[in-house]
């Protein structure tokens, strides 16, 4: 952990995530607290960043075409992005650990079929799958979480499978089996806790990816629906006003890039800290 914090990549990643999560949690304290507030639309729309409107409210990032404060929407969008991304990664980690653990611990047909399913889903273009699933039901944040979770578990499953397989032949596991413990219990109590370290790396990289995809789905209108702000639908609405108010689309995009970079660097640093032998991994 100490080594990790001395790594500048990890320090940057953790710093950005803490600031964004802090701002999201303290939403009402650091912003106007009302992301959908509209007042006199004609007088307050398209205010430039750092402008103050006629009623004296300060808009650090300007306003959009409905006169809504972009900074406030950004803060509340962070809530959506982080919550959706975090829960989606949690779901995919749970599925991945279950599938990978089972595949690693039960050789034979269980392993073969689970690995086949994993490779199959891995070969699918994720966005195509996302579009299909998102089109199945009324778009909502909950659906996006499920969809991202269901399409993001494969790398975790493969990692856990590899770890569990190498752990399964270690003496302490054989000892636990020899004591007569049920295999399921051995897996959960003795093997999985030792197999979870690489999952952390995968989760950090997956978080950035999930946040990016959530924004993508919302951008296409298949994710979080307006007027609830999400970085994706903010970019989509800023697209229409690109000429006279470029900051509406620019701000959420920059926030998105910062968070994704933070997750990637944190994942890289974790990887080096946990296992200096493997220096490269792809995130997508």
């Amino acid at each position: 952990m100490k080594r990790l914090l001395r790594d500048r990549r990890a320090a940057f990643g953790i710093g950005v995530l803490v600031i964004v999560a802090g701002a999201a949690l303290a939403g009402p304290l650091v912003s106007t607290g009302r992301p959908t507030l509209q007042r006199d639309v004609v007088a307050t729309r398209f205010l430039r960043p750092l402008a103050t409107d006629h009623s004296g409210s300060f808009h650090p990032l300007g306003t959009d075409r409905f006169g809504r404060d972009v900074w406030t929407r950004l803060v509340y969008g962070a809530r959506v992005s982080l919550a959706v991304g975090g829960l989606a990664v949690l779901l995919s980690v749970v599925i991945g650990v279950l599938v990978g653990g089972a595949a690693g611990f039960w050789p034979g047909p269980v392993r073969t079929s689970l690995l086949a399913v994993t490779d199959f889903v891995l070969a699918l273009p994720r966005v195509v799958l996302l579009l299909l699933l998102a089109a199945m039901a009324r778009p909502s944040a909950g659906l996006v979480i499920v969809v991202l979770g269901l399409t993001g578990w494969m790398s975790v499953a493969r990692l856990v499978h590899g770890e569990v397989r190498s752990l399964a032949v270690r003496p302490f596991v054989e000892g636990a089996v020899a004591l007569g413990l049920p295999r399921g219990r051995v897996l959960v109590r003795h093997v999985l806790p030792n197999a979870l370290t690489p999952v952390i790396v995968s989760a950090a990289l997956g978080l950035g990816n999930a946040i990016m995809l959530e924004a993508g789905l919302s951008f296409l209108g298949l994710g979080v629906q307006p007027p609830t702000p999400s970085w994706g639908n903010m970019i989509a609405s800023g697209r229409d006003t690109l000429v006279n108010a470029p900051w509406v689309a620019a701000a959420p995009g920059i926030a998105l890039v910062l968070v994704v970079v933070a997750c990637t660097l944190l994942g890289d640093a974790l990887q080096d800290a946990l296992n200096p032998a493997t220096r490269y991994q792809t995130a997508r």
Partner: protein
Amino acid sequence: MLAHLGTRTLAGAVVVAGVVSLTFLLMRLAPGDPVARLLGPTATPAQLAIQRRVLGLDRPLAAQYAIWLGRFVRGDWGRSIATGRPVRALLGDAVPATLALVGTSLVLSYLLGLAVGAWQAGAGPRIDTALSITTVTLFALPGYWLGLMLVMAFTYWAHWLPAFGAAGLDADGLTLSSRLADRLRHFALPLATLTLIGVGGAARFVRGAMRDVMSQPFVRTAEAKGLTAFQVTRRHVARNASIPIITLIGLSLPALFSGAVFVEAVFAWPGVGRRLVEAVQARDYPVVMAATAVTAVLVVTGNLLTDLGVAWIDPRVRNGTRES
């Protein structure tokens, strides 16, 4: 070698079949009635029932699937429910557009990525850090956002390049050479968007792969026997690093097609991705099915080609002594 290729082809066929079946099932289970959408809110129940029978949607699911599969294999992909156009014509125009975009961007990404990654692997810590920050940032850019920013800069501010489509409205009236120039100008921004992101990913991976090989004992041996740095890099490092890099090209294909979906949507590029997004939004079953199948075939074919590439470069795979 042949057996290896045979297994991979079979696995690819299974993936395509799986994708198609899954798509079929999901689309039929999905809420949202394409017939109601097609006929509009004024349709009577009787009209809906007739239209449903015309489209074969009143049959059992298994029968619909069998009929669809039979026709699909024979090349009859049906008509788009939303537009009435034959699906094959619709996608026939789209596939070359997507292939041009994805293919060119893949080649450019890897050429530039190889250059940047190799430079980084051999460079000092300062240049390495600076380039690492750049490539991580490029890789983190969402395609749809980068696309918008490029449109803002090159279309609205600089007035250099068109913002959307594959050709200008006046394209048919132009001479051959100016039509070509018009095409290229429309191609520039979508290509730049996909390539910038691709370079980030490729360079990161190339750097990692090169560094990994450089730490191997045989590189030290090569240096110890007096080879120049260039010879070591070219004959020993680059050759060995190329194996994981070629594998990565195959693995990055699904991501590239996924990225193309967003970029095509932003630039209204007439490719498979844009057709797919439109069809999903309109619940246009036949188009969604065909577009998904086509994407799966493209991805699987790309993976097979990279397998071949690895076998060509790595004698261990070629002789069947090692799985790729």
